[in-house]
């Protein structure tokens, strides 16, 4: 396990370095720079040139890269060009909300997927199977922002059950701890539901196919011949087989959810990484773009690493084989 982990970590590190280099080059080669995007029209060309020199934007790309890397290695992510605050602060504030949103959404996504899959497998070929499958497919094919807007219209505007956006109410700081948590959860509900509802069907179809396959195995027939009830066969005997590959799938889902979170954060005004990076890209705020990209990449890499390690722990057959075997 340990040499395996060391090898995986090394590969992840290499991938991160490659990715950051590519992103560094791409954002700088793209047309426009921070001054075009951020500075007022009134600033004339000479002043712009001066500013560029001060920010080091007139240097060759390689020189800028070396400077950026050496600063990063010293733990200095630089200043946000737009907000004139340290990048670490800007991004640090956004990581928490994004993690909260994506992890909640993922748990919801899993719960919905498993419930839907078991329901479809239990009523295989009957009305409930088609109903659950059809509804899920409709949700899956809706664009995320539209689904979010519709939920907003219905639950926030028409019914008024949930707040329309933001991380917490304006007066949250004054509330007692319990009420503050409830307030946070109420704000979390719609964006998390949007993310989960829009994506759970993919996983559910996967789990359902795996359930069907497991239910066709001989050990299920043997357990059935011992009088084990159908419900127990499904939940206790077959479901673990369908959940095992889900651990690996989770590693692939994390980037998808992070990507979906960008749209949802914008729609619901959720102060997370997604919104920060969208704004940073608009303003060509290079240091912030680099930092958010780096953080997302770390999250994705860590997610797939955790998923692989989790799979190795969860499957007794894989657990016992030595390092080097997949």
């Amino acid at each position, binding site marked *: 396990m340990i040499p395996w982990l060391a090898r995986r970590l090394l590969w992840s590190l290499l991938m991160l370095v490659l990715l950051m280099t590519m992103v560094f080059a791409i954002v700088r080669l793209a047309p426009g720079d921070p001054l075009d995007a951020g500075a007022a029209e009134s600033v004339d060309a000479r002043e712009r040139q001066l500013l560029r020199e001060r920010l080091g934007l007139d240097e060759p790309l390689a020189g800028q890269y070396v400077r950026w890397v050496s600063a990063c290695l010293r733990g200095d992510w630089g200043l946000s060009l737009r907000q004139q605050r340290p990048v670490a602060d800007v991004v640090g504030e956004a990581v928490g909300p994004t993690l909260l949103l994506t992890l909640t959404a993922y748990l919801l996504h899993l719960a919905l997927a498993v419930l839907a899959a078991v329901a479809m497998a239990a009523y295989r070929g009957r009305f409930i199977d088609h109903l659950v499958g059809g509804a899920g497919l409709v949700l899956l094919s809706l664009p995320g922002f539209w689904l979010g807007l519709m939920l907003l219209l219905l639950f926030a505007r028409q019914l008024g059950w949930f707040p329309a956006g933001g991380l917490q109410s304006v007066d949250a700081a004054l509330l007692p701890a319990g009420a503050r948590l409830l307030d946070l959860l109420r704000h979390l509900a719609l964006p998390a539901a949007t993310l989960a509802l829009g994506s759970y069907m993919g996983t559910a179809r996967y789990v359902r196919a795996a359930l069907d396959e497991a239910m066709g195995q001989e050990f299920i027939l043997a357990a059935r011949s011992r009088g084990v009830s159908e419900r127990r066969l499904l939940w*206790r005997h077959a479901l673990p087989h369908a959940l095992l590959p889900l651990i690996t799938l989770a590693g692939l889902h994390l980037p998808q959810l992070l990507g979906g979170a960008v749209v949802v954060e914008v729609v619901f005004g959720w102060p997370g990484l997604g919104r920060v990076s969208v704004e940073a890209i608009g303003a060509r705020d290079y240091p912030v773009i680099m930092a958010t990209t780096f953080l997302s990449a770390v999250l994705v890499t860590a997610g797939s690493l955790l998923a692989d390690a989790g799979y190795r722990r969860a499957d007794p057959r894989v657990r016992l084989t030595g390092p080097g075997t997949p």
Partner: protein
Amino acid sequence: MNELLRLSGLTVGFAGAALPVLRGLDLELAEGEAVALVGASGSGKTLLARAALGLLPPEAWQQGQVNWRGVEARLAPGGWGALRGRGLTWLPQEPLSGLNPLLTVGAQVSEAARQHQGLGHQDALRFTVDLLAELQLPSPMELLYAWPHELSGGMRQRVLLAAALACGPELLIADEPTSNLDTTVQRDLLAVLDRARRARGMALLFITHDHDLVPLVADRCVEISDGRLVERVSGRHAHEGARAPHTVRGAAPRLVPGNAAPALSARALVVRHGAAESVPAVAGVDLDLWPGRSVGLVGESAAGKSSLARALAGHLRPSSGVVSVGCVAAGSDRGAAARAARRRVQMLFQDAGASLNPRQRVGDTLIEAAGAAHPGMVSRLLAEVGLDEALAMRHPHALSGGQRQRVALARCLATDPAVLIADEPTSALDGGTRARVLELLTRVMVTRGLAVLLVTHDLDTALSFCDELLVMHSGLIIERAPAASFALLRHPHSRRLLDCRPAALASTSGWRDAPAAPAPAGGRPFSGCPLAGACPLQNASCFKELPPLAELAPGRWLRCPPASELPPPQFIDTI
């Protein structure tokens, strides 16, 4: 005796098939009765078992009645589901796929105990431990928390039996429970099953393709043929004085080793599947195969037979040692000469269906193997293996099991080999087909002067086909003798293999008295004789060093000093 299960006019077929598989079949089974159901593969034995359990596959249809204690099972209170477990239950054929790989042994066995014996969690676990101990499983407490993949085949099958017995069934339907086990393991499982059945007064429907097992397990035997059952005379005595193995060895004179070079020879061959310090699967084997002669390699599963066969055929790279074909070292060398040498060694696999490309027509397979298309080559090859040349246009799925094995043989012959290595070529085939394929192999061997190595766990097959026997254990050859005088085999392990053949067991009384505990999975490193510790002849020196393979008499070699000092075996030949 009260009637337990009655099938009347049972007809089962598959949608779209022309003929139903079971056609108006009747069967009665009384309380406590043990019945053997014999049939060839494809005769519908398993379908009958599943019909009795109400667990037919969804694509099958059924007519006729299944009655349980006089009531039609479908209409019984609670339906079939209420009967399964307490009433009747099933012991599947394949011990690995019959157990859920993601549930521990304890979870799978105690589940049935909780449900059918009304026990709480702790009591069910205690009940499970007692049951595992009753079935002679070693350290049952630890076994509770073991995963199925950690167990050997014999242990898995006993765990499955424990799970079935935990239901407290009145009838156990055992569906070929031993056909994937070694004969030694089979004997112990049958003994355990028989004792458990008698202790409970449980009825048994034992499904098998092997007539020799009938007297060991059942009072009564029915045979399935043409979708109906035919009653056979009282099982226990039907096969008394079992037949001699039908010999297919040709009468043609064989070349005597000594006057020619061996077609293939291996020296000090070692094969490891893991790291350099792992227990070798083949631990130093010397072997010669001579043109026109067949050598039978027998032994239990995990003895290293297949690893040796694959290394000889060049499919596995040996860790050390030399394989030479003709006079060219073929094993580890690159280059055209070694490649050509390896082409002279062909391998015939157990699962001929899986060894043929499903998308390739038979003719194309043969042309590809030959490397070039000569006019008439395909039909000549097919004729040589006794197939019609019209089959050349077929795909493998349109062939029967026997035909596939013949096509696989023709593919081997297409390269004009000198050596044929057959790894369990007939163990997936039924009795009649098996004998015909062995006869074909003999004919081809004699006419082409092929050197043949037949790998098998079935001693009877080896005895009927081979000129010489090699007995393997733990990667070593422990005995080598002419097949004709197999009765003189001396090694304690060889004797055990001989004695555990069902045909030999039937005339031995008391074989079910002391079933041995199944061996655990995985090999152990050893310094002395691999069998030391479980051998009646062992002495102190057996533990110290590996005994050499010593020549007792011309052509007879033995790796057991204590056995070689015994007088020649004096026993009543049961064959």
